[in-house]
């Protein structure tokens, strides 16, 4: 553990426990819960419990590393037993000593309104609320950035009390952006975030990818781990829109008369090309890309993020 990531592994129980838990939580019933906070509590307490370590110091606190004593270190951190054996002073370091600063970047454009029975935007807000609740519960700092064609609202990452409430209030705003300007948003985040931390982008990522890669690289260079959580509706993948009609772009309002049955193949090929390009881009920049669809339970989606994150961290650790 390099001290910048999420807990490496679930603390209690195998990953399959979460899947079992999914069976008794109805996604539709969950999304019908009006309160984002309550929705997040259900997910955290019901699905994510035990999947990551708690923030408090205790018996289960895992030793991280030794470091040679230097002047100024607290003498209480000197490992006296090791000193007795080796006659050298070492101080012990624990990973809990580092507070995680997580910035949630939420797509607030109108394209997130798509989806049934619940929209992608609603799904993304649920994920954001769940993450915020879970992290703030561990005393981690959580911030929130809304963006559409650019950053529209910015909540710096904080761990103090009341942060969850501010985040939830901010999440309750409806999506109204007419375009998606993720690169500009990431540039703004890089410019304003001084602390190392993790940036989780919750967006459909269906817009043009021009300019995204430099911004990701900029964030990485600023010490931010970036996780792209791509949220898609199943209909966007299958292009199953029913009988013939007029497609109306939610952001630009552009209308296009198509027959979905005839245009499906071409659509899917172009969409897959876009997704492949996105994956390639993320791979080049070592950015975690997690793609979820709105028919998956938000807790399950978050579990995928955690697992993915753990794999990445494990690779990094092994490489180090």
């Amino acid at each position, binding site marked *: 553990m390099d001290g910048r990531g999420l807990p490496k592994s679930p603390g209690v129980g195998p990953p399959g426990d979460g899947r079992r838990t999914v069976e008794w939580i109805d996604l539709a019933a969950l999304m019908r819960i009006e309160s984002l906070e309550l929705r997040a509590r259900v997910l955290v307490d019901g699905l994510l419990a035990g999947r990551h370590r708690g923030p408090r110091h205790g018996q289960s606190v895992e030793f991280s590393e030794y470091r040679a004593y230097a002047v100024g270190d607290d003498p209480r951190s000197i490992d006296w037993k090791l000193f007795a054996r080796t006659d050298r002073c070492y101080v012990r370091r624990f990973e809990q000593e580092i507070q995680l600063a997580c910035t949630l970047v939420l797509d607030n454009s109108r394209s997130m309104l798509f989806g049934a029975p619940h929209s992608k935007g609603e799904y993304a807000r649920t994920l954001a609320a769940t993450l915020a609740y879970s992290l703030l519960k561990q005393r981690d700092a959580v911030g929130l950035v809304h963006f559409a064609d650019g950053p529209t609202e910015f909540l710096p990452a904080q761990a103090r009390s009341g942060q969850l409430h501010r985040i939830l209030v901010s999440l309750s705003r409806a999506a109204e952006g007419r375009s998606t300007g993720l690169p500009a948003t990431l540039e703004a985040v890089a410019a304003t975030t001084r602390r190392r931390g993790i940036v989780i982008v919750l967006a459909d990522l*269906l817009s043009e990818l021009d300019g995204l890669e430099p911004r990701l690289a900029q964030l990485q260079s600023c010490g931010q781990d970036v996780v792209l959580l791509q949220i898609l*509706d199943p209909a966007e993948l299958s292009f199953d829109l029913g009988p013939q009609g007029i497609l109306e772009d939610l952001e630009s309002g552009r209308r296009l008369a198509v027959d979905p049955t005839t245009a499906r193949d071409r659509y899917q090929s172009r*969409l897959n090309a876009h997704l492949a390009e996105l994956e390639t881009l993320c791979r080049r920049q070592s950015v975690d890309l997690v793609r979820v669809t709105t028919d998956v339970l938000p807790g399950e989606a978050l579990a995928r993020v955690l697992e993915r994150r753990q794999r990445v961290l494990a690779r990094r650790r092994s490489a180090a």
Partner: protein
Amino acid sequence: MSFLTPLYLLALGAAALPVLLHLFRNTVRRRIPFSAVRFVEAVPSRTTRRMQVEHWPLMLLRVTALCLLALAFARPWLRLEATSERETPGRRVIVLLDTSASMQREGLWTQALQHIDEALATLESKDELALATFDRRTQWHITAQEWSALPTLAARVEFVRARLKDLKPGWSSTHLDAAFLTALESCAKPSDPHGSTLCRTEMIVIGDLQAGMHLDTLKNHEWPRDVTVALRAVSSPKTTNASLQLVADTSQASSVSAAKKVRVKVSNSADAANSQFQLAWAVAPASPYVPDAPIAITVPAGQSRTLLIPLPDQDAASSTAKNETPKRLILTGDDHPFDNTLDILQRPKQRRTVLYHGDDRSAEPSGCRYFLDRAFPDTATLEVRILTLDEHSAGSRSTQGAALSTLGAESDDARHPPISDHALRRASGRATQAREAAPDLAIIAAPLTTSQLDTLRGALAHGTTILVLAKDASAAETFAALTQTAPLPLEEATVDGFALLADLDFTHPAWQPFRDPQYADFSRIHIWKHRRVTLPDSATSPANLRILARYDNGDPALIEHQSTKGRVLLLTTTWSPRDSQLALAAKFAPFLNALLELNQIGAARTEFEAGEAIAWSELGLIPNEPSRVDRVVIETPETDRIAAPRSTDFFPPHPGVYTILNVPTVISTPASEKPPLATFAVRIPPEESHTAPLALESLTALGVPITQVNDGVFPRGTSQLMAVKSESSSHPTPDVTAIRHEHQQRGWRWLIVAAMLVLPVETLWATRLIRVG
């Protein structure tokens, strides 16, 4: 198939509505919001045609329902009798031509003749025509027999035109009801003795159809089914018509000042354009009209004004008659002068004598004389002198002498006109003095002496009416002495409370003022005391004895004995307040005045309407009196003389003042040398001045089967004839045959029923489709 209201067929276009809805129902493009349109390629939509009907039965049911409704409103009918109508034998056409006074208006008669020409042009040889004119009377001028007797249609038409040349409008009122009934009566009698082959009768009424026509007798009359009426209204472009009517005769006036004025009413038509008129007196009816200080009056359209016009001063040159002075009032300023003349006769004051014989005085309210004085008030034209029998006997000689001297002197005193008025009315040569000496009414309330009895018998012989009041049982002897019959048993009757008059013989002239049922209620007059007279049985009672009234217990109340000239009446009670409430009742004065007029041979009327049949008795002439003359010479308003037979009634042809001269022997003598027997005025009926068009509803409400008005078919709901005339040209309507056939067949009902059957089926079908999906 034909349609009565074919415009409703345009509603068949609504049947396309379900078809269009079915075709376009699926063509509405669905709008799909999408988030990744940029990955979608613009592929043209499928070109397959989606405008196709998916539910044929449902669409057909809806179209059928709408078509049925549209057809029902168009009111279809089948021309089932098309072939039979071509073989229709012909029509019976009855032309009723209005010759009333209102047709005197300018241009109307010419229009009427044109309408007759148009009607003649539509006739075929198999048709039958009859022509009658109507005003107050209906006269046939061409009968169906005369029409059928002529060989060819052209000859018949010429015959009609020749008859029309002799016709012209008259001056009397319009009795369209009588004309209709006469025409219908002729329809009931087929002209063909072998049975009429004519299928229907068409009456063509040609006239101005003004609002003042008489239609009363058409009530409750059922018209035959095969009779139709076509109206041909004639109208004048000039609508201002003011009329002049006499509101109250001067004889009605009670004061002397009022007698010097005449009350007239000037009415103006509702559609008049002028409201300024002038009234002026003509100097004499026979002389040319000379405006003498015309009086300007303003009568707005549709209103009337009543004016009190002072009579002109008596001019010696114009007073051609000694007893009655005619004057002519003329109205000017309107468009139609036919009703602008009013002839007024100023009748002189008449004197009557009433004798009273009783033991009470005039100042004694408990007696009968007291009320007698108050029952005959002086009026402007009538003065009644009430004398006792003794006073009359003492002054009879001097009165005779004065009367004779007055006759010879031809006094000009207007207040005391010559007493020869009544005498001269009786052209029988009766002794003038004896007639004058006889009283008109004698009331006997006390026993008579022999001399008094002789006097009354003499008066009775000259026509005096004697009323014997049964004050007590002695009245029976008086009645018997006057009638020279056996005394009737008379005794005091026993009255339980009061008795009432009942069983009055209203056919007798004594009860003439009470013939109208609204005045015939005598139940409020209580009789406290009366005498009971027992009449002999019918076998032994005199034939000229008549009971005019009875009490409610059956006892006779008023008995009349008719003598040769006069009559004796016995009232078995008195009007003394001790005996009855007669004198206190409002009927008392009319009753006594009716008794006063009993000896007059007919009430001498001086006012008649044009076209009215005038009996000679109404003029005061005795019709059946033996005379060596059988004709009466009358001077007409045109100052020419005609001789009318005395055996029939006289029909004055023109309005104006008529003067009855003497017997034909005086024709050779100058008129000024002999006084006229009577003078009377003939006026245009006032309803003829109501020249506004008649409301059609008043005819249709009476059931008149009007099918045509002028050239157009009668449209329902139109109020004025003229409105119909103006609208008929712009809105052609279906003919009468179509209406009749449609009414008989009523096919629209079946179409409505069919639509009502289709609609539930459609509803069920649609419900089923919705449920299926």
